[in-house]
């Protein structure tokens, strides 16, 4: 039985430009709460741009503009009243290459707590432990908390970056190619971790790897040249896509 789910992100008639380049064309999509939504498509199709609109990371680039709307629950994130710090706390992001701070393992996690003043000093250790446990790093790293995070394996770094994102208690996790720097075994373990995290968080993943989208996601959107060609349950997109372009892409006939 399908359980009714709540809309977490609602994108309506959304357009986005980098200067004169029309990067997102009239996007309409709903991302459901506590589901994994994957965005697939060839390079330059706009999937990362769309992801970065969800926490307004694109604001950091000059000459961008947009119209249409993006709501997270009932908050219009492009309204002038939006507090960007709050937005980015609520919508955490994990990148392609793990980018831990050049600090200790402990301080990497504690950093977000300190700058947002989220926890009393005596609580910080507890929260660091909990978040390392939630990404299944605690047992590996509990004796290495004071070592620099830069010496960890790539997979451990990526897990650490996920844990770092979780301490600000986000609702949404954006993952931009989170496994593309990892080997297949580490990839599989991050995918298993995503299945645990989705019990608490809404996850949106952008990936070049169609098989990964198939394995991990509940819903999948296929994008092409700035358009969202098709969006639906992953099992439908990968077994009976409606649009010929989706069919061609997932069967490897594209281009």
């Amino acid at each position, binding site marked *: 039985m399908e359980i009714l789910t709540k809309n977490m992100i609602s994108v309506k008639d959304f357009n986005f430009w980098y200067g004169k380049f029309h990067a997102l064309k009239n996007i309409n999509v709903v991302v459901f709460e506590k589901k994994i939504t994957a965005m697939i498509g060839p390079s330059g199709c706009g999937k990362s741009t769309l992801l970065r609109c969800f926490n307004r990371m694109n604001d950091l680039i000059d000459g961008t503009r947009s119209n249409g709307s993006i709501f997270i629950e009932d908050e219009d994130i492009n309204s002038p009243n939006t507090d960007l710090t709050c937005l980015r706390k609520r919508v955490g992001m994990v990148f392609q290459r793990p980018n831990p701070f050049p600090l200790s393992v402990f301080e990497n996690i504690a950093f977000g707590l300190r700058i947002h003043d989220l926890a009393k000093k005596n609580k910080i250790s507890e929260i660091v432990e909990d978040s390392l446990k939630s990404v299944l790093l605690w047992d590996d790293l509990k004796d290495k908390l004071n070592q620099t995070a830069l010496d960890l394996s790539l997979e451990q770094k990526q897990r650490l970056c996920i844990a770092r994102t979780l301490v600000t208690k986000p609702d949404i996790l954006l993952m931009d190619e989170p496994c593309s720097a990892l080997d297949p075994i580490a990839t*599989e*373990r991050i995918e*298993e971790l995503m*299945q645990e995290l989705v019990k608490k968080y809404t996850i949106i993943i952008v990936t070049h790897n169609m098989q990964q989208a*198939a*394995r991990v996601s509940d819903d999948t959107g296929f994008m092409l040249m700035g358009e969202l060609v098709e969006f639906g349950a*992953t*099992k439908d997109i*990968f*077994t009976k896509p409606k649009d010929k372009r989706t069919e061609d892409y997932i069967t490897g006939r594209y281009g």
Partner: protein
Amino acid sequence: MHRHFDDELNELKEKLLRMSSLVEDSISLAIKSLRDRSSELAEKVIHSDSAINILEIEIDELAVKLLALRQPEASDLRFIISATKINKDLERMGDHAVNIAELSLELLKEPPLKPLIDIPRMADLAQKMEKDSINAFVNKDSVLAKQVCEGDNAVDDLNDQIFRELLTYMMQDPKNIQRALNLIIIAKNLERVADLSTNISEDVIYINSGKVIKHHFEE
């Protein structure tokens, strides 16, 4: 490491087990309807077939989903491919149970041609093969699966014997032909149940070891 995928494979296995228990019930009720001359039981078999058909579609859809989304390899791949075959074999067995139930309704319209002796024996054998093939699947028991395959000859022999005996009834008196023919077709349906059990057992051995034993292929 526990894989999320394992939960999905278990779901597939559980659905197949539910399917097999429905089919098992259908076959034993169909045979009981014949033995006890009960139209009520026969009707029950005919009506319960739709549940089997629905489950067949569900299992197929789940298997297609897992193939498409999980790109299974090695034992996972063998399991899913074989699950679709076992699914089809079970559904077919359910159809044979319906055939037997329908024929048993036909036979009820007239007095018994003769006391049934070999058909119940054949039914017992076929049913045991069907149960054993499913047990072999559940317990990954290749030895039991092999035994099921070897039991098929006994059922074939009984089928021939039943055919010859009923032929003499038909030659004796043309009035016997309809009933004798119905009994022959019932035996044929039981023989098919045994064959399908053999197929399932062959799939079990393939799942467990990757070995293809059907058509004496790897001997």
